């Protein structure tokens, strides 16, 4: 192993705490290849490699998020805030709050109340059905509900309507162009497009009118609405394909950069030996071998097929 390590060291640091992508250290390269391929092995069927990767993922993810919420959501708004406010008391400054300076002592008092209420949440750990956690919970729910109610009514209801109060004719554009490539710039096209948007929105909205009698008019309009909605879903569908495949390509790309670039155990460049001993390829071979062996020995009976 020492020999292999030295081979790698020739080009890459074997372990470097400061190395960040795209130039990770050799240990990192092997970890990345291992975990990536463990997850891909799920495509064959649920298996110990995937289970391992999945549990590492849950563990690492939970730990990482916990650290983030602890540092930015508890230490900073409580400890750092109070610390800063007490600093302002000494310097006799005001604590800025919504563009409005307040007495820092007051700020400290407020934040201590918040901390106390936050502690009431923790009571749940010891007593499941305690009344205490309900107080902070109630405040949180109230704040969220009010924020979403006001903000989203304006941004998703009022402003989109306002955005549609535009003319359906464009006097500045030439009425029609014989040049097929420039049709989109003509006044006729502008009007058609504007009408499509307005009629389309009205029809789609009418499809979601439920509590009024289905007159032939409403029925017909809502039928057009279905067409509009289906084309909308279709475009989402197309874009979703675009997105999912992009994720896969990126993973392949990142594995590709690890097959070579000094991460391989032996050889250099694109020689067979060097490629075969590169993190992704070697790991893939090993995982495949183990899965094949499990199949032969019938040990994989417990795994559920991925289909």
């Amino acid at each position: 192993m020492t020999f292999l390590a030295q081979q790698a060291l020739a080009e890459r640091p074997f372990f470097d705490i400061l190395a960040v992508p795209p130039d990770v250290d050799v240990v990192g390269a092997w970890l990345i290849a291992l975990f990536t391929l463990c997850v891909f092995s799920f495509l064959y069927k649920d298996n110990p490699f995937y289970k391992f990767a999945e549990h590492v993922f849950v563990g690492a993810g939970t730990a990482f998020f916990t650290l983030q919420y602890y540092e930015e959501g508890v230490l900073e708004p409580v400890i750092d805030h109070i610390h800063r406010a007490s600093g302002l008391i000494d310097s006799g400054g005001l604590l800025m709050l919504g563009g409005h300076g307040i007495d820092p002592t007051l700020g400290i008092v407020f934040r201590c109340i918040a901390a106390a209420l936050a502690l009431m949440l923790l009571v749940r750990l010891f007593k499941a059905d305690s009344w205490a956690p309900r107080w902070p919970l109630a405040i949180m729910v109230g704040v969220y509900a009010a924020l979403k109610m006001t903000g989203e009514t304006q941004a998703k209801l009022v402003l989109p309507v306002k955005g549609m109060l535009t003319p359906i004719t464009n006097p500045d554009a030439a009425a029609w162009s014989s040049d097929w490539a420039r049709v989109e710039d003509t006044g006729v096209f502008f009007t058609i497009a504007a009408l499509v948007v307005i009629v389309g929105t009205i029809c789609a909205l009418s499809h979601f009118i439920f509590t009024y009698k289905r007159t032939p008019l409403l029925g017909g309009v809502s039928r057009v609405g279905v067409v509009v909605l289906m084309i909308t879903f279709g475009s989402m569908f197309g874009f979703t394909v675009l997105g999912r495949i992009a994720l896969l390509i990126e993973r392949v790309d990142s594995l590709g950069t690890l097959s070579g670039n000094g991460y391989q155990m032996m050889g250099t460049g694109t020689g067979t030996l060097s490629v075969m001993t590169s993190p992704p390829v070697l790991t893939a071979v090993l995982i495949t071998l183990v899965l094949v062996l499990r199949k032969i020995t019938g040990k994989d009976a417990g795994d559920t097929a991925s289909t």
Partner: protein
Amino acid sequence: MKREIPILLTVLCGLAITWSFFSQSDVSKAVNAELLAWAVVFFSVAFLLGIGNLIRISLKQISSGHRDRPYKIVLLVVLLGYLGIGIAEIHGWLAPLATGTDPTGQVIMSENVRRDWIYYRIFQPLQATMFSLLAFYIASAAFRAFRARSFEAVLLLMAGAIVMLGQVPLGDTLTFDMASRWQDFLMKYINAAGQRAIIMGAAFGTLATGLRIVLGLERSYLSE
């Protein structure tokens, strides 16, 4: 009292936030800012409670000799190990390391290097790969399940196809540069119309729930 006080708190905070949305007064802005800061703290602490649950469940499965016992041990080791390192870094028990120098030649110290090392070598590849699996599932679903059985499905698949073609140069070449123009028309006009209807629908839902909560009529969140 067990229910009245929380509901009172909800209504008061809800009204305060709503008021500050419409009002011009400095006081309302200050109250707004402070309440939001409170909500951030509660939000975070509530999240931290979740980890307690995870640990408890995992420990139970380990002690009860659950079939996945070894994996649960792995989970706990990773979780607690990462947590330990992170907390040590946050509180400076592990010294910050120099990550480089800025243009003035001043050394840049970072307290996150160990956390980021693990992040980039374990969490990042795992999460990215988990979601890249969907590329394969969408392919097999395309072959085995996406059927033009109804008028709706036909429309949907055709629109999807046009977008898939219109988004890439090859699709344009194959359709004599029509795909991207059709796509533009679908997206900019028809899709925009459909999206407005859907988004307004979502807004109505938020508005209804929000109103009921702010006015203290919705109490289901207090039940559990």
